[in-house]
């Protein structure tokens, strides 16, 4: 892909499709919410939702499932974005689920709250009486996600049954459900990581500066660079170094890989992604747990 030229005609088609999905969600569900993590995919979702309903405001709230293990800047960015676009913001804390005894903190060096988010998310859906959670999941991210629908049905336990999904034909989406059931909707299903970056560049979408190069304390584990935070346990062989890095994805700090990079502009990032030979989830510790790690988490109700 060294001779990769940027092809942008397809971005318009992906945008048209995603806006269509956003409007179907608003029309078919009574109380949807957009799952906002502060990462680039959810920032793109907010941008698409603004376009879909312009000049009206986005007709649903943003919801953040907060693990408490965040980059400070993500939270600041989130609050500013909600204020700037006049969005209602709901925040639900994994810590609350732990305090209530519903979720149990993982132990050991690879401890992460990523999986615990499922408990908090399912409670939030019930408490807020949501019937659709809009996510930034993309089919190119992971092989279990490749089987995901735009409108993905969840039973009254929040579970996904991948072997018995509703067929989706043309652009007719069936969001009908019984009491207690809900849907997950994925407007950017057909986008790849590179599409997302090219779109951000074209639309001049503001991102947290974590996505650009910066000095950070990092350490290497299983071939992946991880951001260091005071609550993280190190193995005896691991050392913290101060290096030029940027985040390729942003999520819970304990399982977000960083890339050694000096890319400081969107042009440089797009060029870097186009030349990259490793998928973005290759840097996510949560997916390395087993071959079907994502499938198992999704069945239980993960994003």
């Amino acid at each position: 892909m060294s001779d990769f030229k940027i092809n942008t005609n397809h971005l318009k088609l992906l945008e048209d499709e995603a806006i269509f999905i956003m409007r179907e969600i608003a029309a078919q569900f009574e109380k949807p919410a957009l799952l906002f993590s502060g990462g680039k995919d959810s920032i793109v979702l907010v941008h698409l939702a603004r376009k879909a309903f312009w000049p009206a405001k986005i007709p649903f709230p943003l919801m953040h499932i907060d693990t408490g293990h965040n980059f400070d800047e993500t939270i600041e960015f989130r609050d500013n974005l909600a204020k700037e676009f006049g969005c209602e913001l709901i925040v639900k804390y994994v810590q609350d689920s732990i305090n209530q005894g519903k979720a149990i903190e993982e132990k050991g060096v690879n401890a992460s709250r990523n999986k615990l988010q499922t408990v908090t998310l399912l409670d939030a859906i019930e408490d807020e009486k949501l019937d659709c959670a809009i996510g930034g999941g993309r089919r190119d991210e992971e092989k279990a996600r490749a089987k995901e629908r735009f409108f993905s049905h969840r039973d009254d336990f929040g579970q996904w049954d991948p072997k018995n999904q509703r067929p989706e034909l043309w652009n007719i989406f069936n969001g009908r459900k019984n009491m207690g059931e809900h849907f997950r909707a994925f407007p950017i299903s057909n986008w790849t990581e590179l599409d997302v970056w090219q779109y951000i560049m074209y639309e001049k979408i503001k991102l947290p500066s974590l996505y650009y190069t910066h000095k950070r304390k990092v350490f290497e584990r299983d071939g992946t660079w991880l951001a260091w935070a005071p609550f993280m346990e190190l193995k005896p062989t691991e050392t913290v170094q101060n290096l030029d890095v940027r985040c390729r994805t942003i999520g819970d700090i304990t399982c977000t890989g960083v890339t050694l990079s000096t890319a400081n502009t969107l042009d440089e990032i797009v060029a870097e992604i186009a030349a990259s030979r490793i998928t973005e989830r290759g840097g996510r510790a949560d997916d390395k747990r087993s071959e079907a790690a994502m499938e198992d988490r999704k069945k239980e109700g993960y994003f």
Partner: protein
Amino acid sequence: MENIKPEIGLLRFTTAGSVDDGKSTLIGRLLYDSKSIFEDQLDNITETSKRKGNDEVDLSLLTDGLRAEREQGITIDVAYRYFSTPNRKFIIADTPGHIQYTRNMVTGASTADVAVILIDARNGVIEQSIRHTFIASLLDMKHIIFCVNKMDLVDFSQARFDEINKEIRELLEKVGAKNIHIIPISAKFGDNVVDKSENLKWFNGSTLLNLLETVRIADDYNSKYARFPVQYVIRPQSDDYHDFRGYAGRLAGGKIFVGDKITVLPSMLTSKIKSIEDFGNERYDAKSGDSITICLEDDIDISRGNMIVPSENLPDLAKEFNVMLCWFNEKPLQIKSKYILRHSTNEVKSILSEVNTKLNINTLEEDTDKKEIKMNDIANVTIKVASPIFIDDYKLNHVSGSIILIDEATNETVAAGMVVK
């Protein structure tokens, strides 16, 4: 997003093949040779192949996403794959060839422009090839590409390819399809997939990837055929946009211009397009596929499920019509039963009043003895709706010519239909 060139930068295709035709291998090969496979994905499948005792990397492992699929070595459901070349972005709807083939292939093809059908060079055209070709034709693919695969197992023989070529041409006389391409390939070794084959020098045509990069799929954007199903009504009720009332939707077919005379269905009221809104950009026109918001000159009562169309060319307002129906559900079709019918953004109650003909899609002959419609069957049926809907022939417009049926009790999508006149 202005200044985007009109030619299509995105091609959606679906793949169909029987078990062991090497479909997953072909997709793996396309991804691998176009350098769309990442190192961590390759490491992962190399390791799995080794663990299973395979000497070569099994490229089919790239597409099998669910645990049950990897364990059983089968593909359960439609999976979507992505790759790009400098010329186009591709979305592959990879559909399994054996279980629930009709349901999955119809689903995969419904959003595709091109169907790639695999034929094993050793076996030639078999029953399943007939089925796949028929479905591709039924779903009105703009191009059908036949890949005669496993040419390595027939010594790259031109004579064998010519025989199969003749079989395919005979089949097409019965099915009828537009824009046919036939290519000899070996997915396993990469012949004619991305790179031109040294073993198949006698073949003068394009490689598969070259064809996928260059086939023409653009609409002719004739404004006569514009259809605009209203998805959502936008009323900001803010100080800045106090009187704004916009109709949001995605234009399905043709082209529209500001000033066009339009008719709103079902009310039949007429108006003119006052403006086409796109996130603060003023536009004078929109073409098929664009997600836009339309404002009209007159204040008319319009809601979701209505359709805005050019006054010079109205669709049929029908209370009873025929569709080619593909049945998807384990529970067979119940004649005289009620189903919820979805047509673009509109939803109505419907009754399946009659099965006219049931087709045996393996022989393409009419099945006269039995009219029971079970999962994966295809039949011409008559549907009656509680209130009239605005339809076109599927071949004229895939959006205004398609429907799905939903079971009222389970909410499952039980069938898909294409309007035929």
